[in-house]
């Protein structure tokens, strides 16, 4: 009986083993494909860094990095009255920072205020309506903010300050502030909600009032998360493009005067792109040199920001 059984089992076992071998191949192929998908993101980063570096080499072979980083005059496309072009990037950096600082000056108090209100004061029903309403601001495309700055905020500002130039850093900065408010408010709120309830209860038990609990207990305990939200929001403001292209002007200028027309790094990239600079020309390479600087500025800020967030998460 035994042998016949074996003979009957034979082909079935064979088939099963065959299926298993086929299954193993499927497994390996699937594993490989999923890994490849994950590596696309690494390739993207490598691509960005390589692209920016390689193309910048062409630029820096003609312009010294020192002149680029410390020069205070930027006129890579138009020649000045002496027929010279200047490649000092500082005016673009100054313009970028000016807009970012104005944005932060509006967005930091507003965003933190909203976060404290939502996390410490608002009853659940109010919070459920207000939180998504504020977050809608984050979903609005930046061209729309540009339109808003140019057609609504600038005319109002000009009726208050008649000397204000039509394209100016102030209007772009204020609208940019509105744009980054939800970033600060939701990240800060997350940080405050994560503060243990026991800290609040202890403070209340000692007789603290509500605002004392919010400002003297919860706010300091969540401070690193809140600061991280500032850094990430400012990094976002530095990389923002369309809003400043539309509303802040195209005049690279070393100035801290918000009433003036300026140009940011991103707006410069757009200006050259719209002109379709011939590949390999110095103008074309300028794009990548400015892009490289922009990439590093935002990278450094993002890394600092995410390290700060992680620190604060570990402490509870």
């Amino acid at each position: 009986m035994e042998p016949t059984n074996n003979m009957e089992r034979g082909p079935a076992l064979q088939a099963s083993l065959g299926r298993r071998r086929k299954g193993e191949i499927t497994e390996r192929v699937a594993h490989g494909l999923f890994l490849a998908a994950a590596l696309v993101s690494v390739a993207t980063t490598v691509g960005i860094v390589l692209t920016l570096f390689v193309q910048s080499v062409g630029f820096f072979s003609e312009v010294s990095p020192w002149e680029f980083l410390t020069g205070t005059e930027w006129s890579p496309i138009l020649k000045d009255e002496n027929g010279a072009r200047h490649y000092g990037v500082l005016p673009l950096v100054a313009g970028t920072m000016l807009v970012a600082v104005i944005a932060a000056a509006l967005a930091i108090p507003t965003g933190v205020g909203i976060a404290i209100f939502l996390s410490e004061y608002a009853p659940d029903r109010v919070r459920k309506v207000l939180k998504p309403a504020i977050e809608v601001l984050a979903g609005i495309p930046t061209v729309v903010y540009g339109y808003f700055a140019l057609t609504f905020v600038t005319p109002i500002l000009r009726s208050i300050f008649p000397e204000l130039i039509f394209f100016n850093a102030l209007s772009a900065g204020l609208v940019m502030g509105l744009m980054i408010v939800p970033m600060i408010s939701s990240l800060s709120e997350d940080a405050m909600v994560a503060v243990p309830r026991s800290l609040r209860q202890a403070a209340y038990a000692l007789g603290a009032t509500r605002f004392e609990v919010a400002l003297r207990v919860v706010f300091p305990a969540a401070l690193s998360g809140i600061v991280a939200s500032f850094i990430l929001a400012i990094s976002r403001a530095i990389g923002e493009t369309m809003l400043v292209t539309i509303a802040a002007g195209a005049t690279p200028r070393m100035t801290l005067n918000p009433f003036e027309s300026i140009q940011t790094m991103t707006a410069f990239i757009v200006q050259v792109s719209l002109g379709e600079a011939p590949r390999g020309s110095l103008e074309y390479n300028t794009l990548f040199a400015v892009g490289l600087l922009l990439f590093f500025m935002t990278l450094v800020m993002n890394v600092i920001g995410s390290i700060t967030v992680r620190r604060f998460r570990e402490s509870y």
Partner: protein
Amino acid sequence: MAFADRDRRFRPKLPRRKRWGTAVYAMLVLSILVGIVGLVTLIAQVVVEGAGWLSFGFITNFPSRFPERAGVWAALWGTVWIMGITFLFAVPVGVGAAVYLEEYAPKNRLTRLIELNIANLAGVPSIVYGLLGLAVFISLLGLGRTLLTGGMTMGLLVMPIVIISSREAIRAVPSTYREAAYGLGATRFQVVIGVVLPQAVPGIMTGTILAMSRAIGEAAPMIAIAALTFVTFAPTGPMDRFTVLPIQIYSWVQDPREGFSGLAAAGIIVLLVVLLSMNAIAILIRNKTQTRSEE
């Protein structure tokens, strides 16, 4: 001594502290108002300026020198094409990466590198992706300033969003489901395809819609790869040149001639309506799946 002790005694000063509390509360309400008033004014401005320009012809016309004959047809089709290519590129790769990180990845340096890398990519300015597309897809691969280039550039841009939200959706699948499937003898791939992904689909769809609504409003990277600003044809294939809605809006905003600012506002209304309906779908999906899991 006794006198000094009494001096140091705790004095509640409650009325003063209550006044401070009221002042702080007023400041907080003010900050909420800044946000809400900003949002409402923005939308009101767009609707007031743009509503008069909206018409059937505005949707079906090509751009024109005459504002009353101009429309968004070319931009609308460009956007549809870009969305399609972005979706086909970003979703399979992004979900694949999420599956790898959640279900396959060992805890080693490569995995940490990939995770760190995705977090950083999410913060790279969108214009930098445009430069990447310009150098890699156009100069290196010679794909031209086409829809394909635009869609792939946009795909890379939104991929971190797809990966991060898909990972969350996959992580939310209870591990008991996986264990049950493994217990029945399923292989890892069978568990992923048969158990984990079907459970994670609603979450992945929500994340995908978020990613798409980010892509739909992006103009900067498309300008960097030199999408056109004045297009009088609807694209018919992935190798056509194109414009998209935000770029069309940008070119109208820039146009100082009479009427074009209104056209820009009307274009914004179209863009916001598309965006809102996408987000509404995402919320619907979320609500539907939430009630189901409570049953």
